């Protein structure tokens, strides 16, 4: 058997916790803090790595849904921006989901167009209601996904109400 990623992370954590941290004198505060954080990050990575591509891919799907909804909705934007948004949705739907870099590039590019729609051109006095509704709806789903993804940092005061990463991805797959 080749040493798996899980096994190697497990070995890294053990070495840090049982060998490196005890060997660091209490006066070496930065080194101790950093070593403890490395352990924390490794534990989170152990929970995340198998799901990383699916997580990013679903993030792109959610963003494409928002872009498509905005392009189709009665939301003020120039004709050229509306055309570009619709074209980007069509283009990035076919992003290679096995290529993490391609997914990230798609998120950045489609996100930039969405930002432009949200910002408007400075002529409207208030955020249009439909724009507000669509972005908040997307934001609620995506914030929950990201909180779930990083619940292992133990910083989120509402983490007890979050699903596991596997459950969250299954929910996302069922919706798309």
């Amino acid at each position, binding site marked *: 058997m080749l040493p798996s990623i899980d096994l190697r992370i497990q070995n890294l954590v053990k070495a840090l916790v049982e060998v490196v941290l005890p060997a660091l004198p209490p006066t070496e505060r930065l080194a101790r803090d950093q070593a403890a954080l490395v352990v924390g990050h490794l534990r989170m990575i152990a929970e995340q790595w198998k799901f990383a591509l699916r997580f990013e891919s679903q993030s792109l799907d959610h963003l494409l849904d928002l872009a498509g909804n905005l392009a189709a909705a009665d939301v003020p934007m120039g004709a050229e921006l509306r055309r570009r948004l619709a074209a980007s949705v069509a283009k990035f739907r076919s992003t290679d989901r096995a290529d993490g870099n391609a997914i990230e590039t798609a998120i950045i590019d489609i996100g930039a167009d969405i930002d432009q729609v*949200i910002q408007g051109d400075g002529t409207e006095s208030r955020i249009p209601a439909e724009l507000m509704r669509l972005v908040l709806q997307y934001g*609620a789903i995506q914030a929950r996904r990201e909180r779930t993804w990083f619940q292992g940092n133990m910083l989120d005061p509402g983490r007890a109400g979050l699903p596991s990463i596997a459950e969250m991805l299954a929910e996302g797959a069922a919706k798309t």
Partner: protein
Amino acid sequence: MIESPARTARRGGPWDRSDMEPRVREILDRKLILRERGPYVAKTNEQVSGMLQRVFASQGFVNVRIFDIERMAGGASKEQFAFTVRHGGCPDGERLVLRMDPIESIAQTCRGREGQMQTAMQGVVPVAPVTYIDADGEVLGQPGLITRFVNGVTKPTDVDAAGVSGIGSRFDAWAGKLAPQFVEYLSRIHHFDWQSKPLTYFKVPAPGTTQAAIWQVNWWSRVWWDDIVEPVPIITLCERWLRENAPVCEAPVVVHGDFRIGNFMFEEPSGRYTAVLDWELCHFGDFHEDIAWAMQKLWGARSEDGEFLVCGLLPRDEFTAQYQARSGNRIDPVKLRYYEVLNAYKCAVMDLGAAMQAGIRGNNHQDLVLTWLGSAGAVFLDQIVELIGGAGYAAQH
């Protein structure tokens, strides 16, 4: 990091961000220049000793001895060292603290502003006396300040549950001693008579206008668009909402800007405050901003019976009631909500923008801490959705 044409495009939208405090603008401009000089490597004790020798020599002291240099815990934003100095003017030695800027951090701020306000606050609230300010790093080589060492703890040694930067601490039986001081000192800061104080690094927003809010929106949206790594639609929506809903501030006061758990020290077992810390985000503005900041979910904790405690100290209603009774300021719920949104926005910008950019470039002494704090960014996005959309909005979707 992925390169994309969109990443480098100017995407700040139609808004003019030039209306902000001049010194804040200088610091943000300087950051863009400095960031190209990275990566930053944590200073060694030997390097710190050399820097301090330069400081004391520049002040005319001779026979300077620097010893017992000790890196201080925490410091998610600035690099901090305790040390002892002995010289001709201080033969018995004095314990001091050096606090200085890495190239980039989660919050890019001014040591001159911090030092001036901390000095002005002496006798108003407990603070560590400032002994030296190098606002532009002319002697130290990077901006920094030196204060006297103050004894105390930021969390009780007999209570568990504390994370990075004091987040998640609960004070249990200590709350009875600490909460009244927390409210009292916040009230004193807001009633501080600053008119005659030398606060040359600060400007005061025009009373009776929306400038107090807009200066903050311009500051933090500038940070977002300077540091953006990946678009976040909720952050963009929030900026627009903040601009459209900016409230009038009738009478600007000193706003601490980071008045929360982890930023005050107290003695054990008395619980007496020894210092209000971390004045780097201090500015003039609306007192609601500090109230809303202290109330943020991330600084809070749940009591044994599940009740949310502001900064791990007291329930939200009790906090606002005690503050109003102590200060005489009347809390306007509409303004409070606005500043809750603004603060969640600021924190999201720090976590998902400034921290990530500094971490990617390796420009901080604790890149790992920044990445860790960045992983909490969605907590603030969720808060923005709840606050703008209405209570329970996020849970319904």
